[in-house]
């Protein structure tokens, strides 16, 4: 498993989710802290493309051998893409939580919600 890291170019939700903002589309995933707490991910239950996700609410489930966890949406919008590689390689969520382990892409319904997310420094401070 990779060492702890929290990229500076991402926005963070206190429930240990990240968002990479690109115009009105954002990519979601879970942070290093979240995947470490969960252990080896063996199953990612993705939402359907076209469904809507709501900020602060669960949009998917991620399961390790020992537990299941809800994945919380950091922002609201419509799912435009689901990472197809996670069906066969859910372990990417552990091994590459910010790159290969991304979960979904969402067209944001209210891009101003981004302002409420934490920056890297604030998120890292919240982990102590």
């Amino acid at each position, binding site marked *: *498993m990779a060492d702890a890291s929290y990229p500076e170019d991402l926005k963070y939700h206190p429930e240990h989710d990240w968002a990479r903002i690109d115009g009105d589309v954002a990519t979601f995933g879970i942070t290093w802290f979240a995947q470490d707490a969960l*252990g*080896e991910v*063996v*199953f990612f*239950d993705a939402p359907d493309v076209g469904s809507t996700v709501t900020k602060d609410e669960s949009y998917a*489930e991620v*399961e*390790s*051998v*020992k537990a*299941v966890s809800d994945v919380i949406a950091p922002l609201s919008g419509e799912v435009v893409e689901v990472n197809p590689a996670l069906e066969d390689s859910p372990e990417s969520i552990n091994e590459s939580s910010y790159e290969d382990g991304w979960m979904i892409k969402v067209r944001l319904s209210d891009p101003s919600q981004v302002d409420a997310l934490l920056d890297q420094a604030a998120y890292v401070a919240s982990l102590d």
Partner: protein
Amino acid sequence: MSSTTDLRRTPLYERHLAAGARVVPFAGWEMPVQYAGVKEEHLAVRSGCGVFDVSHMGEIRTHGPQAAEFLQRILSNDVDRLVVGGAQYSVLCLEDGGVIDDLFTYRLADDVYLTVTNASNHVKDLAWFGRWAQDYDVTVEDAFDEFAMLAVQGPDARRIASQVLGHELPLRFQTGGAIWNDADVLVAGTGYTGEDGVELLVPPAAAPALWDALLEAGAVPIGLGARDTLRMEACFHLYGNDLSEDRDPIGAGLGWACKESTGFVGSEAVAKARKDGSPHGEKLVPFRFTDKGIPRGGNTVVDGGTVTSGTFSPSLGVGIGMAYVPVERSDLGTPLQIDVRGRVRPAEVATKPLYQRPS
């Protein structure tokens, strides 16, 4: 974060931290749930050798002229068939057949027996032993603090354990003794993984050095997470999940460990369940998912039944578990629909054990 101040620690607690364990509260103890990761540890036991700290398990020593008669009265199996140097599995039943605990008993000498209890049931078991012992010339002792317990399991477990102990090991379901580092070691050919191996009961002070020697010889530390996935693949019951005071041993598939002719406490209820079926009409079956998803204890079976244990099987790569289902839907191959948090997943009743080690 819950307070950990009143949790007990085994003599290997520092070793767990040193090995990078994630330690969690379990049945009143601070125990390692994982070191390298559940999946990796699981596969290490299936392919090599793992060592588990199971010092949270309890021990009850029963001795005296009527020890055999007494144990025959409360244990479900036929204690007359337990020879010196033997190990026998049985359940402890309430009068109504409900299961108080499932346990192994070792016969150490003619009139000395040691029974291994589940951590969360030890106090209850001890009280039950004490209650029935009054009618017999027998002494029941709480031997919890006398032993640390290490399980050494896997295809390489016997080689590694005998090399470390410098001693031949007892066969499966037998026990033997060894002296290691001036300490008495009770070696039992038992385990909870579906692999060959032994369980070692040692004085707590001797446990850390024995742990070190086993790691040095190639055993890998295994946490409770993998202990649970290993036992589920082997279809071994976990008390509190698959067994309880509300379930009888027949419905749980433990009829083989019950010999009603001995007249043990609860034998009438067990005999009735064997003849007429369990009072609740359900039977514990192993199952595997035929598609995606992971079952968990507490999930419901559509049209009746409850999952009592469930996980992702690292060996098989699918969701597996055990469920109580109506007897008429308990046959091998019967399709089941399991409600996993609102999503219905297809499964089928499978063969026991779910994982068969290559012979």
